């Protein structure tokens, strides 16, 4: 099989297919929900500014906040593990699982565990890992990957899910979402209540109390952090804010930007394991704080991207995301945030084409609740790619030639006039229908107007002569 290796190849598979079309409908719907939710919340713009300040403050004081957070977690009887990379995070979670005799693990939706491919690593050690977010559960059953950071199966139709459930769960085929939902509830309920370990991500961590905040709509986040005897939270190290009040600001903008809700159904704030006298809750609480490239991003000029609160708003408005589909981005994070964060975390060497997967229209910046200058960061990454010799193929020569003309007015004028004459040879009624070589990248999809026989500067000259 031919595995597509570039964005363009992956996008080619996505463009116009049924999954991408389903995804586009979903993205547009989420976008209009966000716009409506912002419009009926007068404090939205002010909250966004405050959320941005909070996130930037946190990044600038990340060392102090992480130190405080980890003191607080340990003070409440929890355990903190600092993981430099994916391997260290996985090794720690395996060790905990082994020491506490864990067999069955339930997970609530978490991008960061996808980033480190945690499921595969745990399954390789005979641990049963079950995704419990309905979307992620569908992804896991079908061996697929998420196409949206908030709505992982936006690319699947109800028929896709119906076929999958009837094949994998042995039920009679139905494509009624309510019935499919009931099937999943029933199937997952028993797994939840008998799981040994719950692994969650972390939307926000609160330094002053050592808490983690998880938002979900389904309730699987609360089950994951409450039913099993061990709870492990995996957090990207940047996910922190100083206080509960700061977290409130993030929460006020997060759900509105993600799904257009005022708050998600469950905002779950976990501080340590169950306490003496608590009737339920896990016996052990572990937090894995993950770097995995983040300190390198922080040290670079795209550090602002770490302010992201993973709401997905930038995906929903992005015309490239909507046409190409989330899988085109080739990694856990898709859309504009993916185009910035994947090369930042994983390096341009392998991901240098992602920063070019944008028309720089700026819709993402408008939508982003924390006003991350995504187009500006894409431009920086493009500059870095070029300086590392990783610019788009064949562009450099053409640009050097163009620059030579554009910095030499005499040559420029000569070239524009020559362009006009030669176009006469191939143009019909002022339009060119087909160009050879690289020019076909234009004419394969649209006609090209012929360069003018007499450029503007020549007309200006004439006019001056006449007057």
């Amino acid at each position: 099989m031919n595995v597509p290796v570039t964005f363009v190849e992956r996008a080619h598979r996505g463009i116009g297919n049924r999954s991408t079309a389903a995804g586009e409908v979903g993205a547009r719907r989420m976008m209009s929900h966000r716009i409506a939710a912002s419009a009926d919340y007068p404090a939205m713009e002010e909250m966004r500014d405050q959320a941005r300040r909070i996130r930037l403050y946190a990044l600038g004081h990340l060392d102090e906040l992480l130190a405080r957070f980890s003191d607080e977690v340990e003070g409440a009887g929890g355990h903190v593990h600092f993981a430099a990379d994916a391997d260290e995070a996985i090794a720690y979670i395996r060790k905990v699982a082994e020491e506490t005799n864990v067999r069955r693990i339930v997970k609530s939706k978490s991008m960061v565990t996808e980033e480190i491919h945690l499921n595969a690593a745990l399954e390789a050690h005979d641990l049963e890992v079950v995704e419990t977010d309905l979307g992620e559960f569908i992804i896991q059953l079908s061996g697929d990957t998420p196409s949206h950071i908030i709505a992982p199966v936006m690319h699947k139709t109800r028929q896709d899910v119906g076929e999958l459930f009837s094949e994998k769960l042995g039920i009679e085929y139905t494509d009624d979402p309510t019935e499919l939902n009931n099937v999943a509830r029933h199937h997952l309920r028993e797994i939840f209540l008998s799981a040994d370990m719950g692994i969650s991500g972390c939307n926000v961590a609160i330094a002053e109390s050592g808490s983690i905040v998880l938002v979900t709509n389904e309730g699987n986040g609360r089950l994951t952090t409450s039913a099993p005897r061990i709870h492990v939270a995996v957090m990207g190290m940047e996910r922190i804010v100083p206080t509960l009040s700061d977290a409130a600001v993030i929460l006020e903008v997060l759900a509105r930007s993600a799904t257009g809700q005022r708050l998600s159904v469950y905002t779950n704030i976990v501080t340590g394991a169950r306490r003496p006298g608590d009737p339920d809750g896990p016996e052990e609480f572990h937090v894995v704080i993950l770097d995995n490239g983040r300190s390198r991003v922080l040290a670079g000029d795209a550090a602002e991207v770490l302010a992201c609160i993973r709401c997905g708003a930038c995906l929903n408005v992005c015309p490239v995301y909507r046409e190409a589909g989330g899988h085109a981005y080739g990694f856990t994070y898709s859309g504009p945030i993916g185009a910035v964060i994947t090369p930042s975390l994983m390096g341009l060497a392998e991901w240098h084409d992602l920063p070019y997967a944008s028309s720089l229209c700026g819709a993402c910046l408008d939508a982003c609740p924390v006003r991350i200058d995504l187009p500006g960061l894409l431009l920086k990454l493009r500059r870095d790619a070029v300086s590392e010799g990783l610019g788009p193929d064949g562009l450099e020569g053409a640009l050097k030639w163009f620059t030579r003309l554009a910095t030499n007015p005499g040559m420029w004028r000569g070239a524009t006039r020559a362009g006009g004459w030669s176009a006469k040879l191939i143009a019909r009624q002022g339009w060119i229908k087909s160009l050879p070589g690289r020019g076909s990248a234009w004419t394969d999809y649209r006609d090209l107007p012929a360069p003018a026989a007499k450029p503007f500067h020549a007309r200006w000259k004439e006019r001056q002569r006449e007057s």
Partner: protein
Amino acid sequence: MPKVQLFVTCLVDSFFPEVGEAVVAVLERHGCTVEFPFDQTCCGQPAFNVGYHDQARAMAEHTIKVLDGTDGTIVVPSGSCADMMINHSPELFQPDDPIHAAAARVARRVKEFSSFLVDDLGITDAGASCEGRTATYHPSCHGFRNLGIRQQPETLLDNVAGLERVELPDAETCCGFGGLFSVEMPELSASIMSTKLTNVEASGADLLVGVDVSCLMHLAGGLRRRSREIEVKHIAEVLAEETRT
């Protein structure tokens, strides 16, 4: 009589000189003295947007040197080139480089054509007429999002005699041009374009108007493969038509 410098952009110079002439006609009709710094070429945006800063810097420097010695507002019939000259060109030079200061001086004088008419000259009715046509306006992204250009051209169109302006559905979504994106990722670019063109057709307009010839060139080229019913024009061409007396 305000004196203005016309920076016509590389695309207008070589592909759409009639747009440049229309700009001159409209400006002169409204009392401006138009000068054209003859050695101008390209602002450097094409190279800047794909990360080739050395090339972008060279072109920006040339542009700045050509314009810095002149006086009056620098009128640019393109939102994205104006955005480049205002928001990016200065950044290409170290703060202690004398070109940096010149770039900043130039940046302060640059104004996109339609917003110059409305914001600076206070013209909302350019005195044009365009009988029996229905137009829709596409707000090109850089001008719209980075320079806030939308209301000005729409107002100008609303006041063209005989012209009905209809809203473009989903107007604020990109047309897919994106500079070299249009040829680096042409399939995607065309796919986004096709959504835009469907909306243009749905608007019911027979005339598509914009302030950026780059996006318009892409859309016009795409439209020719779908239907010949819809004409594409830069706003200056609409405003230059048949002055009412």
